[in-house]
């Protein structure tokens, strides 16, 4: 997170400062990739690049704080991931959002992968073993740094549903780590 410097960085980036934009990019892109590795594994690089292209297009017109900035960024990335899933499924009649997200490939044996690699990749793999909504909520809350209300708007859920999904996901993670003896 950038916190107090965000407003000045955003203004500079909107004025064409490459350094300011670079700072914004370096702050947000790792989190974006980690989120996309869970919801669109194998396509995270392409989706992230397309997301930044779209963000750059709308950068001048963006207004908001860092929370809104990250929400915009991850919302854009999520929509691109859904479009990709829809394209891969070749089923235009399929429902959007959660249905399309459910068709995204999942990482198999995530617990085993986590056992072998005590790293960020292992943690991502462990989160990928959660149900889709729970995984997304945990990633958006922890990795993206969004609050409950922002996550609720992004996922088009109620804040209560987001809160419940987050708690269930954490309990599930605890159960997984207890069952598999995962230590990071």
């Amino acid at each position, binding site marked *: 997170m950038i916190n107090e410097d965000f407003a000045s960085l955003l203004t500079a980036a909107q004025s064409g400062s490459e350094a300011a934009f670079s700072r914004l990019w370096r702050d947000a892109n790792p989190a974006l990739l980690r989120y996309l590795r869970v919801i669109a594994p194998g396509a995270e690089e392409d989706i992230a690049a397309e997301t930044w292209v779209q963000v750059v297009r709308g950068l001048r017109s963006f207004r908001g704080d860092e929370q809104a900035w990250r929400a915009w960024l991850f919302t854009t990335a999520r929509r691109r991931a859904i479009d990709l899933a829809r394209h891969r499924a070749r089923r235009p009649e399929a429902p959007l959002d959660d249905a399309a997200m459910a068709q995204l490939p999942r990482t198999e044996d995530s617990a085993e992968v986590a056992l072998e690699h005590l790293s960020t990749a292992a*943690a991502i793999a462990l989160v990928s073993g959660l149900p889709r909504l729970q995984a997304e909520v945990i990633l958006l809350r922890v990795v993206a740094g969004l609050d409950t209300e922002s996550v609720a708007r992004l996922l088009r859920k109620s804040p209560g549903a987001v809160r419940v999904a987050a708690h269930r996901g954490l309990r599930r993670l605890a159960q997984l780590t207890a069952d598999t003896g995962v230590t990071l």
Partner: protein
Amino acid sequence: MPNSAQSPPQDGSAAADADLAALLAGKRDVAPWLQPMADVLAALTTEPSPGELAGEARALAEFRRRTRVPVPRHRARRGTAGLTPRLGVKAAAGAAAAAVVLGGAATAAFANVLPAPIQRLAHEVIGAPDAPSAPQPGPVRGTTAAPGQLASHGKPKASAKPHSTNQPPNRHGHGQPGGGQGQQGSQHAKGQGGDSSGQGQPGSGQGQPGGGEGQQGYGQGEGNPHAKGRYGNPHPQGQRGNPHPQGQQGNSHPRAKPAAHHAPAAHHVRPARHRPAMDA
């Protein structure tokens, strides 16, 4: 690292939810049963790896492409890089125009169609043919053209200009240019006796006195020999000229001086208003 996982509370109490909320908020000092989850979440927020920053150049390129301001770049290009090419283009255009003008002038000089002073200058500078220094005698003997033709062709105004000898409609009507015409005309006169090419010459001779005497003497020299050779003094008003006996002989000579020929001829054909000046 030893396995520190513990079973989470199964009661779903408010205290457990508060611990989970604190964990999601970033707190890492949590209950022991949440410590494995805290480690997982901490691993999700570690420092970025180099691979996660590899796309920065691509993003910056897109940023550069999208956020560049066209006007300042255009001005900058104008101010520096564009100046020299534009000057080069202007210089090239000027050089091309100068080359065309000089080439045309040189061509005209070698074609001997320039005005006499310029032709002489060209002769001295670039070796172009010299301007005829003396009036070429016209077809002195070939003055068989009808007086009516003389009247119709004798246009003093046209003949006042030396260059007009190159214009067939006025004098030579039948085609003979300038200084060379006189020579040719004389040849025709000798051979044929009556050459239509000489018909216009008398008219030119008549017009010369009306103009500047000195400058147009050259033109007079061209015209008068014809006039004398054919009609003597062809009057522009259609009067029968008084064929000048001297003109038939003397003017036909190619070496005849223009002044020598023109003065009498002009004297004969000069309009009344010029006569006092010339007599003086």
